[in-house]
């Protein structure tokens, strides 16, 4: 945290927990009898409640998207570079809502919450939730906040899938969907990487079939490995080369198997830090939600038929070096929207950082995002 709050920051923010008593029927057939959602909001809801923007988070994200929780906080929220006064999602004009999704481990009901049936934490008994389920829970959140229609639903990666699902599940409840660095479905390679991550977790002796909390254990090594392999897929060969090259931590080879290259120690550090803060069951759940997302499935695998349900306008953005969800995946989505005669704009942004580029504003990314959101805001004011 800097000595003073930057002028383009939303400043100090406080999360709030909203409790929902109406049961939520899930895609799996199970039901959550009641649940909590942790939410942060930035900006002010206008009189006719038409300026609300929903932010959907990605795999390891949460409700803290912008600003600082305290003056001691080292870093602001995960998308602070895009949310704030004068930023692409301008909090002078929009009322921004950001939540931790169900199944998460940052305060919303998930595997670490207490199971009302047993009095113990859910652990592996927490039901598998899907993108559709999340969107349904977000619709209840919108009801609670008195928001009939979002000005926009915005998300990157897994968050983009939620924005897309909103357009299909609740076509009349959003005017724009901004789908960044996302895909209409995972490829076999994407699922394969998820499987490696899950296998790393489930084969950790400290995993105890997901009941590690009952054993006062944490599958740290598994989570660390899962994050390390995941992290590789978020970066690009070029950006890793730029950042680390073949740089060694010490001057000469030591002819052993400890972390000798800088990239090794970086990955280990990222993995370790993640394993201390993230829940293993949540990681399994989030990767499964990714695997299952496939809106075309309900329409004989015809994505255009699925997209013809949508009523909102779309902005789709991809990044040139993203090999996790490549520009070709975004183009597949855009072509389905074109065939369905939906309003869609698309650009492939040249950026070296691979999948992570959606978190890092470049001049073109910022220009496009700002221009589009400015138009969304102008519609609100009319």
């Amino acid at each position, binding site marked *: 945290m800097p000595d003073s709050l930057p002028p383009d920051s939303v400043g100090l923010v406080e999360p709030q927990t909203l409790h929902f008593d109406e049961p939520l029927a899930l895609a799996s057939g199970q039901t959550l009898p009641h649940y909590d959602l942790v939410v942060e909001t930035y900006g002010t809801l206008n009189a006719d409640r038409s300026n609300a923007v929903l932010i959907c988070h990605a795999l390891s994200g949460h409700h803290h998207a912008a600003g600082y929780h305290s003056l001691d906080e080292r870093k602001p929220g995960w998308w602070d570079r895009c949310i704030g006064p004068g930023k692409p999602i301008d909090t002078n004009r929009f009322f921004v809502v950001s939540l931790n999704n169900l199944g998460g481990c940052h305060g919303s009901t998930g595997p670490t919450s207490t199971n009302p049936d047993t009095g113990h934490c859910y652990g592996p008994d927490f039901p598998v939730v899907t993108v559709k389920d999340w969107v349904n829970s977000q619709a209840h959140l919108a009801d609670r906040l008195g928001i009939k229609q979002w000005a926009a639903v915005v998300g990157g990666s897994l968050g983009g899938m939620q924005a897309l699902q909103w357009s299909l599940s609740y076509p009349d409840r959003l005017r724009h969907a901004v789908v960044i660095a996302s895909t209409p479905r995972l490829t076999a390679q994407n699922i394969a990487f998820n499987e490696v991550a899950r296998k790393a977790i489930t084969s950790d002796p400290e995993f105890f079939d997901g009941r590690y909390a009952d054993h006062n254990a944490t599958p740290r090594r598994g989570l660390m490995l899962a994050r390390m392999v995941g992290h590789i897929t978020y970066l690009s060969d070029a950006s890793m080369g730029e950042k680390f090259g073949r740089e060694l931590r010490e001057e000469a080879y030591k002819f052993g198997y400890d972390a000798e290259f800088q990239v090794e120690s970086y990955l280990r550090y990222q993995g370790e830090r993640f394993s201390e803060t993230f829940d293993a069951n949540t990681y399994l759940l989030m990767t499964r939600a990714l695997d299952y997302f496939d809106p075309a499935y309900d329409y004989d695998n015809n994505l255009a038929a699925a997209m013809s349900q949508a009523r909102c*306008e779309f*902005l789709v953005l991809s990044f040139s070096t993203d090999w996790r969800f490549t520009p070709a995946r975004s*183009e597949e989505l*855009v*072509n389905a929207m*074109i*065939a369905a*005669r939906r*309003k*869609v*704009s*698309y*650009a*492939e942004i040249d950026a070296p950082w691979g999948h992570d580029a959606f978190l890092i504003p470049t001049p*073109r990314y910022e*220009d*496009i995002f700002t*221009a*589009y959101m*400015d*138009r969304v805001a102008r519609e609100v004011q009319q």
Partner: protein
Amino acid sequence: MRADLEIIEKWIQPQSHVLDLGCGDGTLLDYLQREKQATGFGLEINPDHITTCMGRGVSVIEQDLDIQGLGNFQDRSFDVVLMTQALQAVRRPDIVLDEMLRLGRECIVTFPNFAYWRLRWYLMRRGRMPESETLPYKWYNTPNIHLCTFKDFEALCYRKNIHIMNRTVVDSEHRYRWFNRLWPNMLGQIAIYRITR
């Protein structure tokens, strides 16, 4: 609005579904959306133009005709496919024309006439590749790699069984002049063709 766009606009029915190849800053599509309740998309590769389109609510797709083609669009999916001042700049104008006519019921194409008398005179007098206000480039840096004359274009249409519904010949400011009708291939600078198959 640019004068050629004013001419084109008259040939587009209300509520048409339009594809504009090389839509620039989206002026025409914006006008058609507002005044004629048209829908549709623009294709563009210039980043600033793309941003402008997005900011004004014109649906724009970043797509390079020469690299990606138009294979991602379905047969007969548009009422009108437009291309203003870009036919001479694509790698294969003949294939682009076929593709346009595959996608649209009607197509509107504009391009500069290389047989305009000033260009002929420039070449004859100086023996150098002509430069003009419509074609302000050197031979080595021009984007206009497939310049043609009205006669050339019409010969291609004849060979491809493309029916020319309308043709308007104008000067570089896109004004009608009486002499353009008299001897278009000599006196006209820019042609606006409305074609179908």
